[in-house]
């Protein structure tokens, strides 16, 4: 069973990140690639994202999730990149030995020259929110509800309340409405939405579904099935304000309260994780501090747009290819340039730049901590301002990016850092 198998690049996950990484690695000249997917089909979460809005950036047209996935799956097939379905990666070592398990696969150990982590993310469950009350049937995370409705075609409820205004929650508000269910309200703990503005317009406003900002669910009723929830307004410390409770009679509560990068396997590699993103710490090559282990897509940090996942993953694929051919340093390398964040910038990906090996241009992706109006995004090297851009609105729900050229970055003195801030 445990033969001495070997591949040049092993990609964990056959969703949008894994597919784009595979295509890019192959195009960069690596022949021996394997994609390992746990589900019964390639495409990952895109298979259940039947709504449109994907691909504007990549393909200059508006596609549904399955259509967007199909384009990448077609490329993988054209390029004859091998993949395993229904196969789970059980472990990954820092030596890039990967153990697979599957019904047909059995148990296999594969040694890879490079590993690309592309496992995606999962949803924050009810328990993590500590919502008091009963624990009846009818409480779903938005993504689970989406799968049951869109892949299997089941009806998950007739009258729903949604907690959290993340994009999946907003999309599901519209989806439920179109399928004949009634969505009473979307409650959002924060004073701003966690989703894209366009989704508030076309998923809530179009159907008259109220968005209750600074509100949360404080009680769940129903011993067998959900029979109702109580929503209350919260103060600036996000504590419920007594006297503002309102009861909603409903049979379903959907939760769309954030996505968490799924880094169980990353931990096994001993790669350093960021406490802010929940994903690995990477350099501009998207390499973790374990040599030959790369990360991209939602396992690295949660994205809003699949287009940027594809772009990032393609970069990981190219860099993994370069690594296999013998180039590049891991992100733990002390000679790399650290990127510090200030003034409301929560994190950047990458967190470090391998300045000696960097490409002509790199993209820093980041999120901000709050809603900011009329701010300037600025990047400094010491006192020197390398970049600035005026913005009208910055919001935590929308990822921002800054492109920096090698030319602009110039040379760094030892210990000198790059700083990104809002002013």
């Amino acid at each position, binding site marked *: 069973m445990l033969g001495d198998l070997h591949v040049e690049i092993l990609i964990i996950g056959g969703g949008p990140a894994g597919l784009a990484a595979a295509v890019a690695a192959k195009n960069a000249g690596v022949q021996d690639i394997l994609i390992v997917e746990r589900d019964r089909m390639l495409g990952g979460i895109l298979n259940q994202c039947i709504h449109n809005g994907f691909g*504007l950036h990549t393909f200059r047209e508006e596609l*549904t999730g399955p259509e967007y996935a199909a384009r990448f799956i077609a490329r993988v097939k054209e390029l004859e990149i091998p993949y395993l379905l229904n196969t789970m990666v059980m472990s990954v070592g820092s030596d890039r030995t990967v153990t697979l398990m599957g019904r047909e696969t059995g148990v296999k150990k594969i040694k890879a020259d490079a590993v690309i982590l592309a496992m995606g993310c999962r949803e924050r469950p009810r328990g993590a929110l500590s919502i008091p009350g009963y624990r009846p049937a009818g409480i779903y995370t938005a993504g689970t509800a989406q799968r049951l409705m869109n*892949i299997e075609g089941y009806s998950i409820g007739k009258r729903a309340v949604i907690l959290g205004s993340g994009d999946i929650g907003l999309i599901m508000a519209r989806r439920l409405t179109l399928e004949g269910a009634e969505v009473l309200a979307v409650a959002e703990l924060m004073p701003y939405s966690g989703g894209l503005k*366009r989704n508030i317009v076309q998923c809530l406003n179009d159907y008259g579904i109220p968005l209750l900002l600074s509100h949360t669910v404080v009680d769940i009723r129903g011993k067998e099935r959900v029979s109702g929830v109580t929503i209350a307004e919260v103060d600036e410390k996000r504590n419920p304000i007594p006297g503002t409770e309102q009861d909603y009679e409903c049979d379903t509560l959907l939760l769309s309260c954030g996505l968490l990068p799924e880094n169980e396997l990353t931990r096994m590699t001993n790669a350093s994780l960021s406490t802010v993103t929940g994903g690995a710490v990477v350099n501009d090559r998207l390499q973790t501090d374990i040599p030959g282990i790369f990360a991209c897509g939602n396992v690295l940090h949660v994205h809003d747009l699949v287009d940027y996942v594809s772009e990032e993953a393609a970069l990981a694929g190219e860099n993994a290819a370069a690594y296999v051919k013998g180039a590049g340093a891991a992100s733990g390398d002390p000679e790399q340039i650290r990127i510090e964040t200030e003034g409301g910038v929560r994190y950047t990906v990458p967190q470090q730049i391998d300045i000696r090996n960097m490409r002509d241009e790199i993209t820093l992706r980041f999120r901000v901590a709050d809603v900011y109006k009329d701010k300037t995004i600025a990047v400094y090297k010491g006192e020197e301002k390398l970049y600035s851009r005026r913005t009208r609105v910055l919001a935590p729900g929308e990822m921002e990016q800054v492109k920096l050229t090698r030319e602009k970055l110039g040379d760094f003195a030892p210990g000198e850092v790059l700083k990104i801030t809002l002013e």
Partner: protein
Amino acid sequence: METRELTCINCPLGCALTVSIDGGNITVKGNTCPRGEIYGKKEVTDPTRTVTSTVPVSGGDIARVPVKTAGDIPKGKIFEVMKEVHAAHAAAPVAIGDVIVENAAGTGVNVVAARDVAAV
């Protein structure tokens, strides 16, 4: 003159648009691209949307095929289109772009498959 504040839904930027309607003369401000102007004008005169859903498929390797309107349909027709989508079903094999509902709700727009379904 009437003005309306809209959020452009063309792309994730979600530009805040100010649309002024002065008789037949409509002007859009706040857009960062030409598509924003088109959206703004259309949204106050003839708002349209793409509708997506799923349809059961028989004999396929998956149980349901995702579908979408091949183009935008009038916003007011969304539920009529959905009624026809709910009544529809498909038989494998299905290819992306196959027409599932022709001329949905008289809009002149077809509902088409959004993924391939292999026959088993």
